[in-house]
């Protein structure tokens, strides 16, 4: 239970602009999207849910800061992204040993369109893991939520120009990694022979 002892404040009617307070139901509706993004970032289920829980608790504590003019999802994603950046690398990178298990589960649930697409996805995920946190976060955000430049920048709390250039650089880095992975390593002895 992430709210502890909530004081159930009056439900918000955003269209009438009566309040800028957040109703718990509004946050609850965004939880599946937060979990998906966190899972993509962290990969391991429990660690991802820890991250979401931390984000929800912070959002609830700071709910008075939210402005109804923006999308609630963007605000929640920004909180989650900040927490993700602040996490100790040890906790986040611990998922490496668990990727295989998660992959097995996904394979069994049959959500991949095809086996080849699944393999392709594994390669992409492996390459993404080698990127910086910021690049990883922006690539996965675009993949999961398909935001426009404006909304994506709002979700990460950065200027639009920074968002565009960072996304472009992240894609370039991902390309480089995938190309490097696909290039066969030359046999040093082959040249001598």
């Amino acid at each position, binding site marked *: *239970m*992430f*709210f*502890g*002892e*909530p004081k*159930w404040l009056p*439900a918000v009617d955003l269209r009438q602009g009566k309040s800028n307070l957040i109703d*718990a*139901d509004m*946050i*609850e*509706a*965004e*939880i*599946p*999207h937060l*979990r*998906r993004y966190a*899972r*993509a970032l962290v990969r391991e289920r429990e660690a991802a*849910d820890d991250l*979401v*829980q931390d984000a*929800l608790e912070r959002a609830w504590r700071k709910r008075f800061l939210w402005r109804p003019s923006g999308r609630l999802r963007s605000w929640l994603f920004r909180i989650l992204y900040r927490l993700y950046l602040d996490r100790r690398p040890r906790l986040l990178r611990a998922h490496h040993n668990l990727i295989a298990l998660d992959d097995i589960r*996904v394979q*069994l*649930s*049959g*959500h*991949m*369109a*095809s086996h080849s*697409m*699944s393999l*392709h*996805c594994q390669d*992409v*995920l492996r390459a993404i893991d080698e990127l910086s946190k910021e690049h990883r976060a922006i690539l*996965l955000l*675009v*993949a*999961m939520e*398909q935001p*426009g*430049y404006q909304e994506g920048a709002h979700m990460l709390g950065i200027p639009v120009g920074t968002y565009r250039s960072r996304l*472009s650089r992240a*894609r370039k880095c*991902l390309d480089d990694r995938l190309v490097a992975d696909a290039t066969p390593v030359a046999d040093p002895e082959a040249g001598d022979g």
Partner: protein
Amino acid sequence: MADLQHPAIDYECCVAFYDDALPAVQMASVARWLRANPQIAARARRDATRQHALRQHFEHVLYDPVPERLQPARRKSDSRWPGRVGAGAAVMVAAFCGWWLGAHSMPGVGAQRFASRIGMPSRDQNVQRVVDAEADTSAASLMRPDLSARGYSFVARTVLHGKPQPLTEFLYRNKVGAQIRIYARPQPERLTRTPRLSSHGGVSLVQWREHGIDYALAGPVPKSSLEALAKTAAGSGLDPHSQSTTRLEPVNRATPLAAGRDTTAPVVGESAAVDSPAHGEGVGSTSGL
């Protein structure tokens, strides 16, 4: 990457074109632009394919049950009872209006229950997708909407066992692998309701009713795309009472062992040779990129 002659087209538009996230009004202009810039088109298609693969990979998380520790703590005391009474009254008024307005677009209580039911099979990964004789006979006659005009090919039909009646799930996929599903159930009232977007437990779907069948369309695409797809699907259905010859793709018979497999294996080999998620002209125009 803004083009001086097409200032509204940037690289994200190109990626969105291949990722089926572009508003329909932009499809034709972006397709033309991509045809004139094949290198950028190839790069955008590659990025869209990666994005889509990632989204598909994590799609199941959207429908996983939310653990208790992430759910809001509800008060035991019923201090919000006036609100609940109001909500109940609103439902009754909605039901009355639905009855009164007849064929107009307001969804009734039955449609709401239908929509709520849609979320259950899609959220629960362990749902038993078993077909039994009863489900087979009662649900097999539902018409399958056609989405080929928007680049989606029919892949499989599955009957989801449930009470009081089974649901039929039609699975579609476009060229880049995006999957959307249409759920259907027979409805005694032969009223028509236009597609309407709603959200149930975080799952967005579009509902409509025609020819005595309730339909709901859901999938990991933007809401605008869901609505556009639903409008296409709503216009494509055949009347099962006048067209008795169209029932006929074999139903997926998922065993309990394969219940989680989601039955994506093609059952009926309709053509999947669609190049993009766009409308017809956009599809053909970019196939040579």
